[in-house]
């Protein structure tokens, strides 16, 4: 646990000093909103369409972060150092997933208000707590699967290709659940204040299963 915290702190400090990943993710999300505006040719959107645009944008922006997650470790020999240290290897999974989670939260803190400003028609006020809950659960899935996929992809030759190609199908159930749970919250007129429980349940189930799975298999990805 302490090892995980140390690695997490190292990752966050690295990100704060280089400002490499998160600003790129945020910029990517903003540009994607603009692209969606012109692609859909609408001044504002609502309901399921808005939820879909938001989730897809966040997913692709997250893909950028996922691709970069282990690159520093690989280039600077962080893997070898970590393997030499007498610590539990699962700490790496925990730390990297937590770092990715933090990146995603920062991304959303900027991207969701921007989404409201640029694209969303109905006001967000009453639906906000529900939306935060949905995104928090969705981030968990993204962080866990993202770390796993990133750890697989980083040692391959075509890692920028392999990451998204494996990651997107694996994340599809999370995307479906997040988009469907957020849909009613963003509806025009009487928007629901609470997300549908069924979808939250599926999202939570997905998170739990893949978290356990990642915990079980992650050791083998670091052995060398």
């Amino acid at each position, binding site marked *: 646990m302490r090892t995980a915290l140390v690695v997490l702190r190292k990752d966050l400090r690295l990100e704060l000093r280089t400002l490499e990943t998160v600003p790129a993710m945020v910029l990517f999300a903003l540009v994607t909103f603009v692209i969606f505006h012109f692609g859909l040719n609408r001044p504002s959107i609502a309901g399921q369409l808005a939820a879909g645009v938001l989730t897809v944008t966040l997913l692709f922006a997250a893909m950028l972060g996922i691709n970069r997650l282990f690159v520093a470790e690989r280039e600077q020999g962080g893997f070898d150092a970590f393997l030499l240290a007498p610590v539990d290897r699962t700490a790496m999974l925990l730390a990297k997933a937590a770092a990715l989670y933090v990146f995603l939260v920062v991304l959303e803190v900027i991207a969701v208000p921007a989404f409201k400003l640029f694209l969303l028609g109905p006001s967000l006020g009453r639906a906000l707590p529900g939306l935060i809950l949905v995104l928090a659960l969705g981030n968990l899935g993204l962080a866990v699967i993202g770390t796993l996929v990133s750890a697989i992809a980083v040692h391959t030759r075509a890692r920028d290709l392999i990451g998204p190609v*494996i990651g997107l199908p694996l994340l599809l159930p999370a995307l479906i659940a997040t988009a469907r749970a957020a849909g009613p919250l963003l509806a025009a007129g009487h928007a629901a204040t609470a997300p549908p429980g069924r979808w939250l349940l599926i999202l939570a189930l997905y998170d739990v299963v893949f978290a356990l799975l990642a915990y079980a298999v992650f050791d*083998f*990805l670091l052995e060398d």
Partner: protein
Amino acid sequence: MAAALALVFFYAPLDASQGFVQKIFYIHVPLAILSLCGFVFGGVLAIGYLRTGDRRWDMRSYVAIHMALIFGIAGLISGSIWAKASWGHWWVWNEPTLVSFLIVLLLFATYQPLRFSIEDPERQSRYASVFAIVGGAFVPLNYIAVSEATAYVHPRVLTLGGAHLPPSMGLTFVVALLAFTLLYLTLWKYEMAAKNARAQVRRLRRTLLGDDSVRPVGRSAAPS
């Protein structure tokens, strides 16, 4: 296999509403079921590799997934033909079985590119095993998410309450399923035998002719 085909063509009654086309059911459904089972089977075999570190388990898992992929594509094509005949469209989106099957197929289509892009053979088998396990667990989860997201149009032939088929059709279906299972297992064993034989021939040639005269194995997706 021949018995199953004979039953399909001569014994099973023609479907009242769909006529002759319904016969494809006896080919398409076993193909699809076996392909999904093959992916899960590959995941289970991959656990064997990670537990023992024995390369033969990895080869078994590879062959299982390889075969399942072929069965899956055949199942998708036969299903598409059937869908065209009975629903009037080659592809329908509001259909959980179809869509979740496509997603699983897309995921496992990345299995071979992943293997290809890792050079070190041992790391290749380890990463492929991790991928196979995650993919195997993904199959049921994905099905839950997609089936929640869409309405049903597939004929619910095999529900939890039992098969809703007239006995003669039921018998034919069971025989066809059995025949395809045997086909899958036979192909699997055959491929395994071929791979083992090839490895043995290489080893013999190397001892007989000396190390230099035998070309090294090129980079390959298949474990050797």
